[in-house]
């Protein structure tokens, strides 16, 4: 099977190179037949990558420990699901996974894109093929070939790192990869538009779903990563501003900026150069993310490997970045804006500021992440910045962004009249101010928390007002009941109301993030029967009585499990257990370091988070870290809302909103739009 896999890799590389060469060259030599072959090569590449991937999966599932990769990441007693997902557990496999997804996306882009964009497609195929060729070269020549065999066949494999044996870890990496990889498609279209000179909004329509898709995958990947860190790493938080986390956050930020600014280009023909730059930067950041993860240039709790592969990425990053920006420079004069900014009180201005802040946040995160390298290069001494830096810079910027989340969707295009402002913002502003005041009265003293929750209430006010007005209008016009009206409202204006749902998700995230300000942690040593009490920020008294340790063996591990009886204000709240696990191979020999399973009792107000940190000198006297984590549940809730909103905006079908002449109708707000679409 490895022979077939090797063969498929080489065939894939040749196909990719061929497709890239004739794709770029075909138009230049004016040979449409060559351009058609390029598109064919896109499909052929996908087939080759599917064959290679199946070959690797076959090796994994068949426990062929002669294949080094299979030996390194699986073992006979590893649960089946993890054997399957070990495909992307290591660097070599994840590079193959990358090629697989990229080539399938590339083929899909060829298959689903409307014939209207025919002229772009050979270039799109050529760009996708070039990126795929780079990954294949890295695999084959960078010492990252997953099909390498070993001289001897070990009886059992090394097993999978216990911290990766978690359901979240099954889907978190592929989601992030899907996000990273799908960015290549919009980038390919952008390059195709630049190369073909077809610079109207056509390419923007062609990539709308792709940008939303990759944004959605990135959002899911990042949120699952937070969840994994929370339940698996045991430090009581979900975001540590670690370089690898930051690397996934960067393209998300610039992609979010693009999703907003592209609306200005569609509606008003402005920001063409800016949008082009954002697509390029987002693509580069997705490659940069992989570079950071894979190169180990920055010490990180999760950099996965130090290897030469990093240099391949760095070289590609430089080459792709220069090529893209040179191309943009050559087309610069043809990307003149068609309109001017008319007023600061306009949606355009709100979106421009939103873009600036998102890019500002991205810049500061990049700066902070690279600072150890920069300071060492410039001043010869390594200085690191950690969470205090990122919070200090990003909390004010994030709050400004939250404010704009409320303003942007409601303010009129071009120039908002005082009537528009009054009509749209009185209720939300009053709501926000009221909530902030109320919280201050009941004893919240943290300024950032008050600002966050006040602003979140303001944004909630804007979203609720939009839904209320929409439902009321439908109710009046079609006499629909409220739930039906709500569903139809969303169904008929998916882009708009899906967007509001995404904003709702974002504000829920912010509410939850502010909760972490009030986190309480206590480290204690307990003997069985002993009790400890912790006062929570919501004023509850939680008590924890240590019940003892039980030890047993499970499928592939030895477990020591510590149980605590939980009481909330004296009322019984069940038993929480936290485990220390020692994973073993099928001969019962220990593999990997021991790992901790956190005990979590999740609630709408606060999570109880218990870490069993080991026993004292072999007795039952044990150490615990107990954390009360307010509002963490809402992080996951925000993620779910965000995903539902994202899916809504990109759900196929539905009626395209008829673009009404900007200005006249936008002023009148929702009713005019509804009539416009229904008529």
């Amino acid at each position, binding site marked *: 099977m490895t022979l077939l896999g090797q063969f498929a890799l080489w065939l894939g590389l040749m196909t990719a190179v061929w497709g890239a060469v004739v794709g770029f060259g075909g138009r230049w030599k004016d040979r449409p037949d060559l351009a058609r072959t390029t598109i064919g090569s896109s499909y052929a590449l996908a087939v080759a990558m599917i064959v290679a991937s199946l070959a690797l999966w076959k090796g994994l599932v068949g426990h062929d420990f002669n294949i080094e990769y299979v030996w390194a990441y699986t073992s006979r007693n590893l649960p089946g699901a993890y054997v399957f997902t070990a495909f992307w557990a290591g660097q070599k496999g994840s590079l193959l996974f990358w090629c697989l997804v990229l080539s399938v996306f590339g083929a899909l882009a060829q298959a689903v894109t409307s014939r209207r964009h025919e002229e772009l497609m050979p270039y799109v195929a050529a760009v996708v093929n070039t990126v795929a060729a780079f990954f294949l070269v890295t695999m084959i020549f960078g010492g990252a070939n997953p099909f390498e065999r070993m001289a001897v066949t070990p009886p059992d494999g090394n097993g999978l790192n216990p911290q990766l044996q978690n359901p979240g870890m099954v889907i978190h990496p592929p989601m992030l990869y899907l996000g990273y990889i799908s960015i290549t498609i919009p980038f390919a279209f952008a390059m195709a538009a630049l190369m073909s000179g077809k610079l109207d909004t056509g390419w923007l329509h062609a990539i709308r779903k792709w940008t939303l898709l990759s944004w959605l995958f990135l959002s899911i990947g990042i949120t699952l990563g937070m969840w994994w860190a929370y339940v698996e790493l045991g430090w009581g938080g979900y975001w540590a501003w670690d370089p690898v986390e930051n690397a996934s956050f960067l393209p998300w930020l610039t992609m979010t900026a693009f999703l907003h600014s592209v609306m200005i280009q569609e509606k008003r023909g402005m920001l063409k150069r800016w949008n082009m730059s954002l697509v390029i930067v987002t693509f580069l950041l997705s490659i940069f993310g992989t570079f950071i993860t894979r190169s180990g240039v920055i010490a990180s709790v999760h950099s996965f490997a130090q290897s030469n592969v990093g240099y391949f990425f760095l070289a590609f990053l430089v080459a792709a970045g220069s090529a893209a920006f040179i191309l943009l420079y050559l087309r610069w004069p043809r990307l003149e804006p068609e309109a001017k900014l008319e007023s600061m009180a306009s949606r355009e201005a709100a979106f421009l500021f939103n873009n600036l802040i998102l890019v500002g946040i991205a810049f500061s995160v990049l700066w902070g992440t690279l*600072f150890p390298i920069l300071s060492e290069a410039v001043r010869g001494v390594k200085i690191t910045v950690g969470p205090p830096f990122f919070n200090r810079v990003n909390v004010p910027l994030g709050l400004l962004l939250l404010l704009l989340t409320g303003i942007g969707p409601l303010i009129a295009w071009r120039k908002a009249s005082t009537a528009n402002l009054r009509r749209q913002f009185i209720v939300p502003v009053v709501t926000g101010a009221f909530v902030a005041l109320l919280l201050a009265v009941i004893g919240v003293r943290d300024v950032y928390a008050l600002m966050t929750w006040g602003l979140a209430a303001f944004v909630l006010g804007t979203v609720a007002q939009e839904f209320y007005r929409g439902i009321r209008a439908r109710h009046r016009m079609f006499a629909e009941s409220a739930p039906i009206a709500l569903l139809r409202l969303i169904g008929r204006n998916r882009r708009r109301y899906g967007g509001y749902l995404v904003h709702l998700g974002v504000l829920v995230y912010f509410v939850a993030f502010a909760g972490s300000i009030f986190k309480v942690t206590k480290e204690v040593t307990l003997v069985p029967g002993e009790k400890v009490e912790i006062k929570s920020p919501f004023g509850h008294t939680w008590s924890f009585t240590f019940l003892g340790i039980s030890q047993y063996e499970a499928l592939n591990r030895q477990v020591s499990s510590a149980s605590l009886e939980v009481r909330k204000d004296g009322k019984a709240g069940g038993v929480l257990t936290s485990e220390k696990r020692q994973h073993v191979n099928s001969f019962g020999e220990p593999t990997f370091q021991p790992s901790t399973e956190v005990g979590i009792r999740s609630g709408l107000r606060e999570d109880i988070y218990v870490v069993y940190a080991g026993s004292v000198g072999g007795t039952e006297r044990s150490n615990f870290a107990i954390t009360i984590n307010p509002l963490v549940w809402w992080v996951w809730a925000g993620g779910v809302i965000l995903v539902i909103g994202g899916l809504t905006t990109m759900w196929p079908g539905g009626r395209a909103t008829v673009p009404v002449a900007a200005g006249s109708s936008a002023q009148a707000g929702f009713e005019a739009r509804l009539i416009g679409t229904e008529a």
Partner: protein
Amino acid sequence: MSPRNKFLLGAGIIIASVIFLIASGVKETGVYFLTPSELVNKVEADPTFYDVGIKVGAKVVPGSIRRDDAARRVDFAVSDGSRQFDVTYVGIVPDTFTDANDIEVIVEGKYGRDGIFRATEVLAKCGSRYEAEYEKSKKA
């Protein structure tokens, strides 16, 4: 003022604030990241480096770990091959901090005049957690 200039003014304010936040953030929260030799040399040359927040990346000296579980305290020595000093830490160490051979740690804390590093945070560096583990066993 034209809307364009007003926007540019606003944009300038935002960009200036971002730069200010970054610069002041680095200045006030930045921490030196040193090897044991660099730290020892620095404090010898300039005593103000005693008792300021510093991060040190080093290897734990094998066999030097002494755990006082009851007090949740760990003492160990770190070294980069040429210089060595003791670290003391009260708190729960991560799972990756084991007695196994040469683990790498990043400790954050202050280096005292008594030559002991009082750590407020210990990260057992997993820079190699997922792969070097097997690289190691492959060589073995």
